[in-house]
């Protein structure tokens, strides 16, 4: 006791803008990361400048150990400051940025005393790479903890040592899987995989960290068996397998990052130093290419949507959904999954039961832990009598697409609503101003238009009618954020934004069919362009009857010609996947693959892709001209998250700019002369600058 007291060093504190450190009675340094003027910790240039000073100070102090922790409520470290990526002007500048991070974490790893990363929430990208440079990692055992290296989703791969340190820690197969997919894992999964040494509840976190620093257990690396994959003999074999796996998800010409990562690892994983050098070069190269730039832009646009509704004083707790069909039922399930109490109304149990079944399956798949699944089930309340209307904060109508039926429903429930409840419709085709005609307070009606399947499609169109109040639009956006969806504000006009732009594209695909182009060729042209699914298969999947009814509604409003081939299919009862026969054949929901036209080689004329894509571009311009959507960026983010429009191309408007406005206009003229006036350039093109 007395001996300890004598050797006890005085408590030392030092404060930077983004960091502060403090020693404790055992001479352990607690280094707090608390990025200034930000709710989230990210590594930006100024953070690194200070981090180097911190590291110098630490070398000087030579304490018993170092524990790095976050002072942010929301989590640990989100990664690099992605906005800085957009300011990079050259590959050299990118390389510079990467080398700064690499050398910081090299220095951290080289510290002569034990180091530990105390992960209290998300720990992603650069945050994960910093943690990997520590000797030990302890993660908070809560749902908010997610660990991963999601760089590949931004078109790059880890660049601050992650590609070297993660395989070293957990073996190449698991590490490559994480880095190639960009997926994140829970604290428990991370423990199982060996990414973290321990997981602990909040109450034990700091004590656990201290115990590890004082005990200094052996530093973890991949076991002997796991390490085999990293040997020179095994690498080419695994690399070949990985390339094959990746090719199933993303073609190299569109998404080069995963392939670059596999190359890097295959060639250099034997030597840590070279690996780091080459890692930096590879990332710098990727950063200066189009795909990464476009994906980063999409990421930032997504952040822009996420910020909508911020600061709005509205905290919905109870959602009432009327209509338990596919859309209504799935909206209800999603809201319950996200923690809200939901009453789901329909006329008879037989309409509600299938929705409950789908909801329970969703809860099981997403929540995994029995008590959380049960709580979600308990939050979703079948409601045959509409008792939820009077207490809900948001009422969403999702009954049949029939103006009179919806108006009748609204007049039945309007007087029951709480004064501050928002009344929403999930209509996809009926103008809001018509629906609000019969309301006493037409300003309270707002469109909240989800896409199918609700659990997969992140985008939700927030539709405003002439009378919709700003307050209710804001509340609708906030509601979307509460359930982790992306709100896209659009004006009410036929098809809103996403369906309106998509429909001419689908119709053109059917016209191509009528022109004698095989379906497979049409779909190939679209997927080669980067669409996640060809338009013919998409139409079959959505249901040809639904396509026809939307096309007819939009056709009337927009002067769109509905192709005969589509009408004939529907008349013949061929609705696509659900009926087993559409433009393709299906068995048990799976496409029966036929051979591509025998004499036709795999090649096809450039016209096909342009006919499809330029329809979308032209319609996008029309939407901008009519003010359906605020700006070109919003068109891009809407189409990417609403339809999966080739993200690496940055969206339809970004693609248009990339090819050049005049080029597109000229091309439209050519197509118009060849195929008719449906390709006539919208007059909005003149305004696009």
């Amino acid at each position: 006791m007395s001996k300890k007291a004598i050797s006890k060093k005085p408590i030392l504190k030092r404060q930077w803008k983004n960091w502060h450190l403090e020693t404790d009675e055992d001479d352990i340094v607690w280094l707090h990361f608390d990025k200034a003027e930000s709710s989230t910790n990210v590594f930006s240039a100024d953070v690194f400048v200070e981090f180097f000073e911190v590291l110098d100070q630490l070398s000087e102090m030579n304490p018993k150990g170092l524990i790095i922790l976050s002072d942010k409520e929301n989590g640990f470290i989100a990664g690099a400051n992605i906005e800085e990526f957009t300011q990079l002007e050259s590959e050299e500048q990118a390389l510079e940025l990467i080398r700064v991070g690499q050398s910081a974490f090299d220095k951290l790893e080289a510290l002569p005393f034990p180091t530990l990363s105390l992960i209290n929430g998300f720990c992603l990208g650069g945050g994960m790479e910093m943690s990997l440079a520590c000797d030990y990692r302890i993660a908070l055992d809560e749902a908010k903890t997610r660990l991963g290296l999601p760089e590949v989703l931004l078109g790059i791969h880890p660049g601050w040592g992650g590609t070297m340190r993660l395989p070293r820690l957990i073996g190449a197969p698991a590490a490559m899987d994480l880095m190639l997919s960009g997926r994140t894992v829970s604290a428990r999964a991370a423990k199982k995989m060996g990414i973290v040494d321990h997981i602990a509840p909040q109450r034990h976190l700091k004590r656990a960290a201290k115990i590890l620093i004082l005990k200094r257990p052996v530093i973890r690396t991949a076991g002997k068996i796991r390490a085999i994959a990293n040997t020179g003999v095994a690498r080419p074999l695994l690399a070949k397998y990985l390339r094959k796996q990746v090719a199933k998800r993303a073609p190299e010409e569109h998404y080069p990052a995963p392939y670059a990562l596999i190359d890097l690892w295959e060639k250099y994983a034997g030597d840590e130093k070279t690996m780091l050098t080459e890692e930096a070069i590879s990332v710098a190269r990727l950063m200066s290419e189009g795909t990464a730039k476009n994906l980063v832009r999409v990421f930032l646009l997504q952040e822009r949507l996420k910020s909508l509704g911020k600061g709005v004083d509205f905290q919905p707790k109870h959602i009432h959904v009327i209509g338990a069909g596919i859309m209504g039922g799935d909206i209800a399930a999603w809201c319950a999954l996200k923690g809200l109490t939901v009453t789901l109304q329909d006329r008879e149990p037989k309409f509600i039961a299938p929705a409950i079944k789908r909801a329970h399956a969703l809860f099981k798949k997403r929540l995994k832990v029995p008590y959380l699944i049960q709580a979600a089930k308990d939050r979703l309340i079948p409601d045959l009598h509409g008792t939820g209307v009077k207490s809900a904060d948001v009422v969403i109508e999702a009954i049949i697409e029939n103006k009179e039926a919806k108006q009748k429903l609204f007049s039945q429930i309007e007087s029951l609503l709480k004064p501050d409840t928002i009344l929403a419709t999930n209509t996809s085709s009926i103008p809001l101003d018509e629906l609000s005609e019969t309301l006493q307070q037409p300003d309270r009606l707002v469109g909240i238009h989800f896409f199918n399947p609700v659990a997969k499609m992140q985008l939700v169109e927030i539709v405003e009618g002439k009378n919709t109040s700003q307050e209710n639009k804001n509340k609708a956006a906030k509601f979307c954020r509460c359930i982790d969806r992306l709100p896209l504000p659009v004006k009410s006009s036929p098809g809103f934004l996403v369906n309106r732009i998509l429909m001419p594209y689908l119709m053109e695909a059917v016209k191509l069919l009528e022109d004698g182009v095989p379906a497979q060729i049409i779909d190939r042209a679209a997927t080669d362009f980067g669409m996640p699914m060809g338009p013919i298969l998409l139409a079959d999947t959505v249901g040809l009857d639904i396509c026809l009814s939307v096309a007819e509604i939009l056709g009337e409003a927009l002067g769109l010609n509905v192709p005969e081939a589509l009408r004939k299919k529907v008349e013949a009862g061929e609705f696509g996947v659900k009926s087993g026969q559409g433009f393709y054949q299906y068995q048990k929901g799976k496409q029966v693959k036929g051979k591509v036209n025998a004499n036709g080689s795999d090649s096809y004329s450039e016209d096909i892709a342009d006919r499809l894509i330029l329809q979308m571009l032209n319609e996008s311009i029309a939407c901008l001209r009519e003010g359906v959507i605020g700006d070109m960026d919003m068109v891009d983010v809407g189409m990417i998250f609403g339809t999966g429009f080739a993200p690496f191309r940055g969206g339809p408007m970004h693609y248009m700019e990339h090819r050049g406005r005049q080029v597109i206009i000229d091309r439209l003229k050519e197509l118009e002369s060849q195929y008719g006036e449906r390709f006539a350039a919208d007059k909005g093109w003149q305004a696009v600058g």
Partner: protein
Amino acid sequence: MASKKSSRTVYIVDGSRSPFLKARGVPGPFTASDLAVNSARQLLARQPFEPAEFDEVILGCIMPGAEEANIARVVALRLGCGKHVPAWTVQRNCASSMQSIDCAAQNIAMGRSELVLAGGSEAMSYAPLLFSKAMATWFGKFSSARDVGSKLKLLSRFRPSLLTPVIGLLKGLSDPVVGLSMGQTAEIVAHRFLITRQAMDAYAVQSHQRLFAAHEQGRLSEIEVLYDSDGKYYEHDDGVRADANIEKLATLKPVFDREFGLVTSANSSQITDGAAWVILASEAAVKKHQLPVLARVVDSEWAGLEPAQMGLGPAHAMAPILKRNKLKIEDVDYWEINEAFAAQVLACVEAWKDSQYCRSELHTRSAIGEIDQARLNVDGGGISLGHPVGASGARIVLHLCHLLEQNNANKGMASLCIGGGQGGAMLLERDSG
């Protein structure tokens, strides 16, 4: 409720129940807490007050699952009543949820509570299969054996017969004090009051017909539809047999006294899963939230009697209520006597007609009289819809409330016989007009 004068009025303002689902030899789609939660969510959603405004939640249940200790609290939390609403589970065997209503009523009468959610739930199909004591002993020794030698020795003593399960449900439905199954006690009261097999079967047929008619005429609005994870939904009590007829019932073999008995599975209550709830409120709560009143809880009584004749419990519990409230049989508009066994309900009716029994056992001067069967269990009972032990008390009280309302009637009596030799009864009153 002895000190009636100083106590406050207790109201039943609303209630709901699950459909009663016949146990089909395997665990049903819902556990006891699932039944309780899923039958109450809509009930709570339609109230003008928040679930957190209950003063307490009381649930009757005699066989909660292993993970449902103090099942009332589990259910209250799952229903969103919040952490500050206390909840407790009560057991009085077949009358557990009449007990929970009685407890709620007492606390309101005394001024300790304003709003109480009370009910009962039972998943009979989840009754456990238990290891025998011999098996439990063997397993305990095996787990604590330290070395391989003693483990091997114990292994050599293992016999497959050790694995023969003890059926929890049968144990629960037997009286350990007198060594009789519940069905055998029904045989005893049948013998004492000369209830014939024919009378029992006729009563059973009538029970099915009455329940079927109530379903058909849509008079069971108290039922909330249940939905499971497989896309199935449950709207009605599924044990009802519209085609039940006396000829067919006559062919069945007795199940308790197998050789010469009279009680068959068809003239006994069915084994079912179910839950039922009522909301009780004080005068102040009724005013504050402008609650509609279904009925008042006027009086209740618990009686003990010979365990071997437990089926006569209602005769013993209802008699003092009539006396205390100076009521004649004709003053009561509707009677609900839980149909544990046809023999037992009929024996209760006979007992009140029997002046000797009334004098010696119920201490009245003469026979109490005859309950009009047209006013007794008018919409069926345990025989047609089953007797999920913990839930039946709340079901008959709730249904009696609805009967009084539907028929603009004034007084109703609900009663159950209780395994172990007890009876419970409750008098409800409604302002007719």
